[in-house]
C-alpha cells in the first residue's frame, strides 16, 4: 500500500519515526536513514504489519519497502 504524509520523530522511549497523514499516524519499521528527516513530505510504499507489536504504540506499524520524496 502507498501512504502519503509527513515524517515526524515521536518522543516515546528512545524515540521513534512516524509517518503522519491527515487522519492517522503510522509507526515506521525499518525506515532507511534517508527517510529519517523531520518534516520530510513523502509517499511511502509499504505493508502494515498486523503481527508486530512495539514499544512506541503510536499507530499501525508500516514496514517500509520504498519511498519517494514529495515537494
Amino acid at each position, binding site marked *: 500500500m502507498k501512504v502519503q504524509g509527513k515524517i515526524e520523530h515521536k518522543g*516515546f*522511549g*528512545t524515540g521513534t519515526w512516524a509517518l503522519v497523514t491527515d487522519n492517522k499516524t503510522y509507526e515506521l519499521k*525499518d525506515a532507511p536513514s534517508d527517510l529519517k528527516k523531520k518534516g520530510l513530505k513523502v509517499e511511502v510504499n509499504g505493508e502494515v504489519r498486523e503481527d508486530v*507489536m512495539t*514499544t512506541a*504504540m*503510536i499507530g499501525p*506499524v508500516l514496514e517500509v519497502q520504498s519511498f519517494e520524496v514529495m515537494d
Partner: protein
Amino acid sequence: MMKRFFLLCLFLIGLGWAVSGFSGLAAQGTYDSIVLDFREEIGQQSITNQIQAIAQKYQVIPYLNSEFSPEDNIYIVRGDKQLLKSLRKSLGKNTEYIEPNYIYSANYSAKFDNGVLYDAVPPYKNISQDSFFSSSIPNDPFYGQQWNLRSINVETAWNETHGEGVTVAVIDTGVSQVPDLKDTEFVGGYDFVNDRAEASDDNGHGTHVAGTVAQSTNNGYGVAGVAYNAKIMPLKVLSAGGGGTIADIAEAIKFAADNGADVINMSLGGGGESQLMQEAINYAYNKGVVIVAAAGNSGENAAGYPARYPKVIGVAALDPTGNKTPYSNFGAGVDIAAPGGLTVGENTAGGILQETIDPETGGSTFAAFQGTSMASPHVAAIAALVKASGITEPEDVARVIKESARKVEEDPLNHFGAGHVDAGSAVQLALKGQITFRDFFRWLRDSGYLNPRFWIDGGAVALLPKLGMVVGSYLLAWFLRNYFPFQWSFSMMSGLVAGSSGLFFLRGFYIFDLPQWPMRMMGSSVPELGNAIAGNSLLNPIFASVLIPAILVVLFLGHSTWKWIAIGTTIGVASCLTVSAVISPAVWGLGSGILAQGFLGVNALLCLGLATLALKAETRTV
C-alpha cells in the same frame, strides 16, 4: 520479707545503672542533603534568584522537596556540614530555617526489613509532615524528582511491603543490569529475538521499565523503584528498533508462566487480535499470573492489543497534574490510570525518571521517558506489592487494585478506568481482613493503649525453638508429675517459663532511644542470660548449665512458694538445654559441634535428675 526487699533493691539499682549508663538521647543522624525553607514574604522572584545564586556559587541544584512544597518554598540541596554552615551565613535572613535533611528512614528500612517502625507521627495522616518524618523515604539522591512515586502514594505501601518474594516478568526489549539495578534480584529470563538465555537490552526501553518496577532503592544512588524487593525476570521479545512479533511475545508469556513469574508487564502493543496471544494470556492467567499492559500511545478511543484482552489490566497514562496525557489511549480496555509522564521537547521534568542504557554508547544513563509504557510498570509493581501482601489470584489482585484506586468523578470517556492507581490504598485493602502482627500493634497504639515510640523486630525471635522449649518443659513437668504428684501452681509455671524460654516475645521489643538489653534480658531464659546482654547467640557455659538451677534448689527448697519456682526453673532449663542441644548447640569456648552438644545434653540430664531429686524430697514431706 527482708529477702524480697533486698532483691527489689538490687533490681532497682541495676535498672538505674542501665539507664544512667546510656549515652543520651541526642543521637546524631546522618545527612547528605540540606533543607531550605524560604520566607514566603520575600516573593517568588527573589526566591528564584536566590536559588540560581546558590546553584552558581556552590555548584549544586536546589530542587523542590515534593509536589506539596512549592507553596511552602521548601527546597533541598545536596551538601554537607560545610555547605550548611555557609548557607546559614549567607541566606539566614531570607529563610525560616536551614537544617540538615536527616536520613530518618534509610537506615531503618534497609536494616530492619523484617521489622516495623513505630514513631509518634502516625503515617499517612499528615502528608507534609509525613514526607519529612515517615519511615519510608529512600536515600536515593534523585528520589526528589520522582513525582510519579509520590502521586501513587507508594511511601504508604512501603510501610508494609516492598514486593518481597514476588517475581515480575518484564516482556520488552530486554533488561541490562545498569548500576542502579545492581542490588535488584534477577531470575533467569530469555532472549526470544536472538534465541539465547541472556536477555540484555539494546534499546533502553526494557531497562527503564524494569527500573520503575524494581530499581535498586535505598542504595544511596540514582532513583527508586516501586516494588524494589521484587525479582525481575527479563524477557526480550523486541529488537533494538523496538518492535517484535506476536509469536515471540506469546512464547514469552508462556515462558513467564512456566518459570514462576507472578506478574507480567507488557509495555508494548499494536497489531491485531491474535488467537495465539489470547491463548498464551489465558494460559498464564490460569496459572495465577497477573498480566498488565500499556493502553497505547495513539491517543485513540480504545486500548490497543494486548491491553484490551479482558484478562489483561490495561493502563492509561497520567501527566504530573493527574490529567490524562494527550497521547494516552482511553475508552474500552482501559482498566486504570497511572503516571506515564509528559515530556515537552528537551524539557523532561514531567517524564518518568529511571536509569537505563544509552543505545548509542551501551553505557548507563538516567533518562526521563513518557508513555503508557511508563504507566504500565507502575501498576505491575503495585500488583507485586498486592501479591506480596497475601492476595494470590489474578482476579482478586485486579479487584484490589481497581477498588483501591482514587476514583475520578467525571470521566465520561473512560480516560482513567477505575481511577488513579494508589499503591498505599491497594496494599491496605489487600491486608484488610488479614490481621497482621503490625495491625495488632497499630491498633494498640491508635487506641491509646500504647503511646511510646517503640519498634518491633519481627525477625529477632526464632519462634519455633522457643515454643519447643516451653512445650517441652511442660511435657517434662507432666511426665514427672506421674511419679511425684504435685499441684500446678503459679510459681511452678513461672519457673517453667523462666527456665525454658523467658518472656521471649519481649526480645524484639525496642523503645526508641533507650538501651534494648533489659528487654533482651527479660526475654531470655535462665540459660540464655549469660549472652543476653551482649546480644549474641553463643550460650555462656556458666549460665547454660545445671549450676543456677542447683543454686536455686539449694537456696529455696525450704521455702513453701519459692521452692516451686526453683523446681519449675530446673525443669525449664532441662527443656531449654535439650532443645538447644538439638537445634543450635553453640556454646562459648566449646564450639558448636559434638562437644557443645554433649555439654548441653549432660547438663539437661543433670537438671532433670536434680528436679527429680527435689520433687522426691518434696512429695515425701507432703
